[in-house]
């Protein structure tokens, strides 16, 4: 390979490593992203102009630049316009695009291989294995990512059926068996170009896509970020297979780095929820059953509180801690929340926010939401710090958060969220919970907090409630 091309690939690989490292620290994260983008650009441009195979450079520049242009325009437009709360979906969508890219590359290369064998070349099993594996992983990632996107979107509901796990494992075995058989068939060059072999190849593709879909289908929407992280590392591995195929060092390093870093990140995310990956993948099946059983239990009575009483309670409090959750994001109530915070502070009330690591739909979701509303960064307390302060807090206002304040995580060993550290809001004097209704939240688990003596329910859409509260406060 051309030495300048190799140098560009080296630069690319190094920027990926540095970029990822910098992305792990708040101060350097943004620069890390830019550095990696820069390295990527160099690698891409160098490939277009300097890549050579058997002495020939690449052609079809019109197609290449056309494709790049279209992808850039659409990608930038979509990425800039998407709402903050739709970020995880976007990551999933773009991940799916990468997986699909790997899948398509495999299809074309398989086709090329067939033609070259037809012209008398030998079948290289190594190349074939790479092509097939790249295709399987790329397809699973593509299909799974699209389902994850649909779930976070709300378009696709959690769906699972009794034998789901067995079917999934069965499909996986099917893919394995058919692939191995297929590879053995291919060792015979004559067999290789027979249409039977082609059918096999595309069936492996179809089953892989199906597996991707069924893999993600049963998993609860609340667990999507973990799944997306896992699919992210899958696509990385698919990219690495592409790197093997073309003997391309930058595809290899980029792919493997993401494959391995992505796996670690997935494990970190699971740890933040105090759930094992296996638990997450087995999916909503478990929690739905528990949710159903608990729903029929007598839950006890809950108290409601009026807007006016809430306003008075908060106005005369010394310290108020707000616990935001997904409900705040759905209602897009972050600005109304900030307004309320400012009004309370004017009245001499100390206001802070208790942020649970998995509040919302992704880690950091609440931080992003509140930052968008210009809530000062130093008002946001991480869970450990917030838990220290609840004891001295007069009023906790819970805005659409559910699992992160559910005492079942501490008290109920049969609960799916048992063991997850929560925000210990019941140490405060008063707890006010804002939800739209008494229906269980996204995870489908009942929450005993709502029935405790210190807790009152304030029903309504978060945005409207906060705005009305603000009006009431002005009159107190």
């Amino acid at each position, binding site marked *: 390979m051309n030495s300048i091309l190799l140098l560009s690939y080296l630069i690319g690989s190094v920027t990926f490593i540095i970029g990822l490292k910098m*992305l792990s620290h708040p101060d350097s994260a943004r620069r890390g*992203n830019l550095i990696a983008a820069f390295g990527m650009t160099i690698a891409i441009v160098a490939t277009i102009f300097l890549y050579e195979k058997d002495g020939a450079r690449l052609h079809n520049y019109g197609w290449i630049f056309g494709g790049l242009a279209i*992808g850039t325009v659409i990608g930038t437009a979509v990425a800039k316009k998407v709402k903050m709360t739709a*970020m995880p979906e976007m990551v999933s969508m773009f991940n799916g*695009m990468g997986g699909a890219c790997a899948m398509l590359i495999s299809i074309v290369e398989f086709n090329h291989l067939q033609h070259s064998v037809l012209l008398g070349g030998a079948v*290289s099993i190594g190349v074939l294995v790479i092509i097939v594996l790249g295709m399987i992983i790329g397809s699973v990632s593509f299909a799974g990512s699209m389902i994850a996107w649909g779930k976070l979107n709300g378009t696709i509901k959690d769906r699972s059926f009794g034998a789901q796990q067995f079917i999934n494992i069965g499909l996986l075995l099917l893919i394995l068996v058919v692939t191995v058989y297929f590879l053995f068939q291919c060792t015979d060059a004559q067999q290789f170009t027979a249409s039977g072999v082609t059918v096999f190849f595309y069936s492996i593709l179809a089953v892989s896509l199906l597996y991707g879909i069924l893999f993600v289908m049963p998993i609860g929407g609340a667990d999507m970020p973990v799944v997306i992280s896992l699919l992210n590392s899958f696509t*990385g591995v698919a990219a690495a297979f592409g790197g093997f195929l073309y003997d391309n060092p930058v595809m290899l390093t980029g792919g493997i780095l993401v494959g391995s870093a992505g796996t670690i*990140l997935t494990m970190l995310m699971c740890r933040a929820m105090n759930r094992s990956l296996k638990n997450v993948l087995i999916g909503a099946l478990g929690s739905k059953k528990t949710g159903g059983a608990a729903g029929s239990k007598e839950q006890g009575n809950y108290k409601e509180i009026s807007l006016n009483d809430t306003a008075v309670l908060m106005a005369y409090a010394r310290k108020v801690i707000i616990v935001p959750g997904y409900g705040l994001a759905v209602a897009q109530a972050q600005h109304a929340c900030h307004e309320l915070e400012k009004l309370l502070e004017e009245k001499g009330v100390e206001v802070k926010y208790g942020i649970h690591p998995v509040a919302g739909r992704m880690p950091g979701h609440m931080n992003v939401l509140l930052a968008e509303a210009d809530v000062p*960064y130093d008002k946001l307390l991480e869970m450990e710090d917030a838990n220290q302060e609840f004891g001295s807090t007069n009023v906790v206002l819970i805005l659409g958060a559910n699992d992160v304040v559910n005492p079942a995580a501490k008290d109920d060993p049969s609960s799916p969220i048992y063991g997850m550290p929560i925000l210990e809001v019941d140490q405060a004097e008063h707890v006010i919970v804002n939800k739209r209704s008494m229906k269980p939240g996204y995870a489908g688990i009942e929450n005993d907090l709502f029935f405790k003596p210190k807790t009152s329910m304030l029903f309504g859409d978060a945005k409207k409630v906060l705005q009305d509260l603000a009006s009431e406060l002005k009159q107190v």
Partner: protein
Amino acid sequence: MTEQLQQFFTQHYDLITIVILSVFLGIEVIGRVPSVLHTPLMSGANAIHGVVIIGAIIVMGEAEPDNYLALTLGFLAVVLGTLNVVGGFVVTDRMLEMFKKKK
């Protein structure tokens, strides 16, 4: 077939070494990440695996004018790969923009 595999290993030894070292590197680089950065990191990693677009460019660039499969799928692959790269980096940048500390 083991003959072929052995040959494959020796031929590609350097690349195989890079792979194994990269696995360890990926693990090391992640280290301790504050949970607030989990999502931007995931997004950044997502953009980086868009490097798969280089394969798409090669496919597109080598496609013969009469090979419609390579031309269409190659073009589609380039578009999809670009979406992954560009969309990925832009979305990550947006997420990180929000984490600026207000001075």
